[in-house]
Structure formats: structure tokens, C-alpha cells
């Protein structure tokens, strides 16, 4: 397609006026450093003021949902890694949470705790990057380096846990690929000790920084009614006063056992979204600390009789059930039983409600694997938030919405 001027007048109440010939059009993206990845916005400017914005997506549409119909439930986890690639672990957990809801599998307590821990670590690394990027775009490069260094520490924990630093593919149906080792627990403990200090440093760098506050406070305000009507979830909605967090409202995994708080603000601007993310990292740390302290013993995968998770080698060699189960799961024409049913299950991903609508048809592949991506609804908010602000606010608003193109386009 050509990179031509897009047509205006198709969306938004302000569009369509005739006497706007003096306005000029600016193409922003799809290859631009502040879009972080690939998205495109055509801006209509009056001097430096944004009159209207026309967001466009699809520059990274790779057919994830179509691929989900051709891969088995365990294979598809590799694709979910690449969905929201700044917190792959949270996507793994979301996918298998939905699969287990379809199959009706109940996890072991140890597995639920382990998944809670890694999902919270993923939340921390996601918020680090998204806040770091807001800082980077508004001119605070040091903040970004602090954030990225801490991400490297989390990468290191994940690498020790499952061998891959970034695209982990860690969960399996009814379990996880590797159990926690003492070294992993030690590394998480080290992170819990050092990270609050860095977080304090980061807050001192930016939270009361005059330039940063001036550039984000009062910019891109979203009211509570608008947030609900436009389907915002996660930190974006909570910054506008919507007290919805699936960890509390529909306690999945082991969240019901831990003491933590939901962070909310009422301002609804970019600064509030930044503050919510900073505060949520502290709450996540609390959850991880409690979960590590009370990590239940016992098996990490569901039992052999469920016939979903591969048995351990010792079970295969020493018990007949283990041998049969291993055989059944390894043969291409066997596998586990999937009902002719449809179900939706969601988790509170770092970005908002991330759910999967899965249709089972008896085979090991999903008949349809729909992903409910928070980024799409947040990107649709963008023209509403930016109208009336200046061109330099575009990057602040984009950064605070934390739009991830691979999750946006899938």
C-alpha cells in the first residue's frame, strides 16, 4: 500500500470541518523511535496543537490466532511468548490458565504459587520497561538505564529457571516445564533485597522531577466513565479510578492467599498511570516475598491420572501408569481429551485483562484461539486522549498507554 495521506472526517466529533485547510498533516510511524515498535498515527496539526489523530495498526499482524488453530495446546505457548514480548511469562500463564479452564484441570498448590511468582516478576519487568520508556521519551535517559539494568536481573532469574532469558515458554498444560531449584529461590531472594533500593532511587530520579511532572501531569486525561465505556483495563483503567483488578475480583492461581493492595488513582492522566505502575511494582514485590516464603512442597505438575502433563522420568521407568501416560502423551494420535466446549478465561496481565477464548473440538489443537488483547482497546483510546494537546505530548501519552505492537496486531 502507499504511504499516502489518510482520509479524515471518518472518526471523531471534531473531524470534518471545511475551514481547516490551513491544518497540516503529519505522519508518525510506522518506523519511529517513539512508537517503540510498529504502529502508525496520522496527526492533523494546527501549529503545534493536535487537532485530530488517526491511529492505524496492523504493521505487525502475523496471524497468531490462525496459527493457534494449527498448533497443539502445548506448542502454542511458544507463540504467546511473542505476543506481549516485554512480559512473556505473563502470556504463558494466561494461555495455559485458559486452556486449563477449558479442560477443567486443577493445579497443584506448588504450581499455582510458582506461576504466581513468575507472573508477578513479569509484571515488574513489564512496568520497568514501560515506565522506563516514558522516561526515555520525555528525556530521562538515566531512568531508562536503571530500569533496563533491573530487567537484566529478572532475565537472569528466568534464565536460571528455564534456560531462556527472554522468550521462556515456561508453562505446560497442568504444570510448568521446570521446578524451582534452590538457586532460583536464592536469586529471587537476592532480587527482593536489592530491588526496593533501586526502586527508591528511580522514584527519586523522576517522581518529583520538574520537567517530567510538567510533561505528564494533566496530559491525556481519561475519566472513569470513558474508561469503562471504552473498555480500558489494567493500570490505564485503575489510574482513572476503576477499581477492577482480576487478582482481587476473580482470585485465580494463588492470589487469594496473599496480602496485597490494588493501586488506584483518580486523576487519569499520564502522571497517574506512571505512579500506578511504580506502586504496583512494590505490591508485586510483596506478593513475591510472601509466595517465596510460603512455597508449598509437593509435586509441581498435576498427577499421572489427569493425563496432561508428562510424568517424571522416575515415574516412567518405575510405574506402569507412568509408562502408559508417557506413551499416550508422546504418540501423535493420542494426547489428552478435550471437550467439545468453549470457554473464556483471563488473568490480570501487566497491561490489563489478557484472556483467551478457546473453542475445543476434541483434538489437541484449539478450533479457535482468540486472544483478548488489552492493547487494542488502549490504542483505540489514543485519539480521544491526545486531542487538544501538543505534538510533544504524543510520545508521553503513547508511552503511558504502553502499547505493544505484537499484542496489538497479533
Amino acid at each position, binding site marked *: *500500500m502507499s504511504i499516502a495521506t489518510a482520509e479524515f472526517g*471518518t*472518526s471523531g466529533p471534531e473531524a470534518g470541518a471545511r475551514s481547516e485547510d490551513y491544518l497540516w498533516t503529519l505522519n508518525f510511524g510506522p518506523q519511529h523511535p517513539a512508537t517503540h515498535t510498529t504502529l502508525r498515527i496520522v496527526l492533523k496539526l494546527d501549529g503545534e496543537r493536535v487537532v485530530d489523530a488517526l491511529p492505524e*495498526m*496492523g504493521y505487525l*499482524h502475523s*496471524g497468531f*490466532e*490462525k*496459527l493457534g*488453530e*494449527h498448533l497443539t495446546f502445548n506448542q502454542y505457548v511458544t507463540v504467546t511468548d511473542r505476543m506481549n514480548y516485554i512480559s512473556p511469562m505473563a502470556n504463558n500463564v494466561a494461555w495455559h490458565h485458559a486452556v486449563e*479452564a477449558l479442560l*477443567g484441570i*486443577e493445579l497443584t498448590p506448588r504450581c499455582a504459587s510458582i506461576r504466581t511468582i513468575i507472573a508477578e516478576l513479569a509484571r515488574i519487568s513489564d512496568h520497568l520497561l514501560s515506565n522506563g520508556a516514558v522516561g526515555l521519551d520525555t528525556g530521562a535517559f538515566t531512568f531508562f538505564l536503571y530500569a533496563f539494568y533491573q530487567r537484566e536481573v529478572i532475565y537472569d532469574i528466568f534464565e536460571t529457571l528455564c534456560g531462556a532469558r527472554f522468550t521462556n515458554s515456561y508453562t505446560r498444560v497442568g504444570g510448568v516445564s521446570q521446578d524451582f531449584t534452590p538457586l532460583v529461590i536464592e536469586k529471587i531472594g537476592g532480587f527482593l533485597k536489592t530491588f526496593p533500593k533501586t526502586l527508591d532511587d528511580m522514584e527519586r530520579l523522576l517522581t518529583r522531577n520538574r520537567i517530567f511532572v510538567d510533561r505528564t501531569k494533566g496530559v491525556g486525561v481519561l475519566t472513569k466513565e*470513558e474508561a*469503562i*465505556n*471504552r*473498555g480500558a483495563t489494567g493500570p490505564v483503567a485503575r489510574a482513572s479510578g*476503576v*477499581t*477492577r483488578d482480576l487478582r482481587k*475480583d*476473580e*482470585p*485465580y492461581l494463588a492470589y*487469594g492467599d496473599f496480602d496485597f493492595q490494588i493501586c488506584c488513582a483518580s486523576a487519569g492522566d499520564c502522571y497517574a498511570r506512571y505512579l500506578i505502575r511504580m506502586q504496583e511494582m512494590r505490591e508485586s514485590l510483596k506478593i513475591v516475598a510472601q509466595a517465596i516464603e510460603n512455597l508449598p512442597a509437593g509435586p509441581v505438575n498435576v498427577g499421572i491420572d489427569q493425563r496432561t502433563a508428562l510424568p517424571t522420568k522416575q515415574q516412567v521407568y518405575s510405574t506402569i501408569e507412568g509408562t502408559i501416560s508417557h506413551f499416550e502423551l508422546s504418540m501423535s494420535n493420542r494426547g489428552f481429551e478435550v471437550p*467439545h*466446549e*468453549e*470457554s*473464556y478465561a*483471563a488473568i490480570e496481565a501487566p497491561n490489563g*485483562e489478557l*484472556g483467551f*477464548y478457546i*473453542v475445543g*473440538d*476434541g483434538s489437541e489443537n484449539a*478450533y*479457535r484461539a*482468540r486472544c*483478548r488483547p488489552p492493547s*487494542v*482497546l488502549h*490504542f*483505540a483510546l489514543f485519539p480521544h486522549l491526545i486531542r487538544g494537546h501538543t505534538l510533544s505530548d504524543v510520545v508521553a501519552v503513547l508511552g503511558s498507554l504502553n502499547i505493544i505492537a505484537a499484542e496489538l*496486531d*497479533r
Partner: protein
Amino acid sequence: MPYTLPSVTDVLAGLTNRFGSLETSLNRGQTRVVVPEPLSFDVLAWLKDQGFDLLIDVTCVDYLEYKAAKHRYGLVYLLASTATNQRLTLRVFVDDPDPTVKSAVPLWEAANWLEREVWDLFGIRFTGHPDLRRLVMPEEFTAHPLRKDYPLQGRGERHNFPVITRDHS
């Protein structure tokens, strides 16, 4: 102890009162209601008044190869209530040759892009939608790729570009 969703029996009773008997089903705590296509907008509007204020998702399933399916396309509306945390799934079935549904954009702004995506990937038309363009595929694209009769590898569109060699650049 796994969490179970709050029950929606009172809402279902109200629905039956207002719209006559509708086909409902329950699977692992999730309630689904099948709504005939002409009624879909009214039911959604009524449910919004009853407190289901958050539209989680609008999507579609193509039942072309599904065992014992009566219709070709099944739309899915996932609703939730921010006050009571109830959830409700609405199914609306439509068929070829011209699958059409009334748009939910007048009720929820969130439906705007979600419906555009369904139009793009499944080719289901939403009447009353303010801006029904393709969302993720290029404008020139002609097929609807998530339909079951469209192959995974496509029909050669991905190879249809000019080649730039060292001499050209």
C-alpha cells in the same frame, strides 16, 4: 479452591421476562445466552442497563468444520460488570451469504475497533458502524483470513512484492 463466578440467575430471569425464552447453557461457571440475530442489539442495550457496563470482547468463530454445527458464524460478546463482577457471554449466530449484525458502537465505544477486526478477519458486516474499514490487513486485501476456508499460508499474497537487489538500491 478455585474461584467461581457470581451467579447470573436473576439476570437470566429478567431476560426471559423481557425477550421470551432464550437458549442458555452453563460450562464451568460461565453462562452463555444464545440470542437471535434481530434481537441482539436490544438484548445488549438491556444488559447494559442491568449493570453489565464493561464490554470485554467482541469476536467470532467460524463453524465451517465444526462437528454438528448448525450455523456458519457465531459471534461472541463477552460482558462483565465492574460493580458485581458478574460475567455473561452472548452468542449470536449468522450465516452466509451476507452475514450481518447490528453494531454495538452506540452502546460501547469499545466495540468500534473490535467490530472492525471481526469485519477484517471474518467478513461479518456490522450495520450502523461509523467506520467499518479493515483494521489489521492492508486495504487492498480481498480475503478474510480467519475463515476456515482460507489456508494458513495464504494464497501467495505474502510473496507479491517487488524485489530490490544490490544494483537497484
